[in-house]
């Protein structure tokens, strides 16, 4: 519950406080958000599976975000940034979908 509250508060703060994101980080924010979403979906699934572990969640969240941003950064340096970020988004999207399917099975039994 507190976690959900955290998410809601984050969205509200982001919408109303309008924090300034440093220019250097800005291109990697969307991909990091997608990676974090992937981690969150994985965490929800694990919770429904009853195997949730906060430590694993924290580590996976941070590493997901970092790795995704790093991949895009590397892609930018190599000149294939948009293709690589597309690839990352596709992979993360597939994982989000499979996790969402597991969650759906848990919640709706279908």
């Amino acid at each position: 519950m507190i976690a959900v509250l955290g998410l809601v508060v984050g969205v509200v703060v982001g919408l109303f406080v309008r924090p300034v994101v440093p220019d250097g980080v800005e291109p990697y924010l969307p991909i990091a958000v997608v990676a974090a979403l992937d981690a969150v979906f994985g965490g929800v699934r694990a919770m429904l599976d009853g195997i949730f572990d906060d430590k694993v969640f924290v580590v996976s969240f941070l590493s997901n975000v970092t790795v995704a941003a790093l991949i895009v950064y590397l892609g930018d340096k190599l000149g294939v940034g948009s293709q690589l970020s597309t690839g990352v988004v596709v992979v993360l999207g597939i994982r989000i979908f499979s996790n969402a399917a597991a969650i759906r099975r848990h919640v709706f039994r279908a």
Partner: protein
Amino acid sequence: MERQPGTGPDEARDERLGTDDRAAHRAAQDRGDRPRGDAGEQDGEVVAPEGRDRDEEPREGASQDRDGADPTPGRAAPPGRGVAVTRVREEAWMPTVTAQRDAGAQGSRGERPAAVSSAYRTGDSPERRNAAPSGARPSDQVTEERPRAQSPAEPAGEATPAGSASREGSDAPEVAPSTGGTGAGPTGRQRLAAALWPPRASRAQFIVALLLFALGLGLAIQVRSNTDESRLRGARQEDLVRILDELDSRNKRLQEEKRDLEQQRTELENSSDQAEEARRQTEKRTAQLGVLAGTVAARGPGITLTINDPGGHVRADMLLDTLQELRAAGAEAIQINEVRVVADTFFSEDLSREGANAVVEIDGHRVEQPYRFEVIGNPQDLEPALNIPGGVVQSMEREQATVSVVRSEKIVVDALRQANQPDYARSAPE
């Protein structure tokens, strides 16, 4: 902690225990629990289930889960690995299960001794789990055999009430670490409800809340910056280049359109200018022709010629000579008394009347003395033309007429004539 089937002193009990334990694992798998997959599962990675799981797994949900997961390398884990983990867990759990069975309890979680729970926790922690395979390696061949012993025992374990009791009991610790020890329902829906309400202020909750806060923040920032006009800020260089190209081509298109429209506007303006110019020309021409035709009044510099002829010697022919002289000198508009002189002006006189009775008519109008000519033209040309030796003035003065020529900068010729529509002549295109 190796357990060779059929070697222990109370073999039956051992066997029994193993079955229960496996049943417990089955139960855990029913909910999607996988002994080793926990860590990977959580970070979204669908970890390959242990070989054992898959062998005994005709369950619907789980097999679907695995479809997407198969290609992951975790799949290739040695068969002994997962079993070893199971064994570690068994180590930790045997006392509990035994105790519970001994007490004949239905394994309610609240009864579980805290010490056991913590023992499980340590046994279940990732480090320990990861470390377990190497430590348990010697037991590999033992575990290889386990599936064999398992299959016949399976139905029995499933059927007995003791089996379900221990399933309950062994299920709890699986859930306990994640849900903080409160009652976790067997279904995901119940777990979800339990996780959402009532709120628990545990460290894990706060850490997760912090991360989710960061996620929400990033999400909101990103959504807002995408809806903002400043969406270019986050764009990558090549995207910017592409956008710039698009803008360039669009700009070019718009420039061409603008050029076309400007050209069109210029043409329209020119045509309307031309129409205006033509109208002006026409008006000017109308005025000129009106002056010539005597339909409009005229004014300008010129002279006034007055002829006073009491003797009546100045006849129509002399007046006509005077008029010709004036026209030759460049007179543009002429009026004699109240008659406008135009192209078809004619002079006539009654030859029967002589001297002072002489009557001169111009265009059928009788003109009385003195004859007064209002002439518009260049005065410097008109006056000398009249005064040249042997000219109009001298010849009239020979006839005892008094003639005066007065220059003026302001001569008004305001006698008008009706413009007659010609009966036969029609204007022809040039």
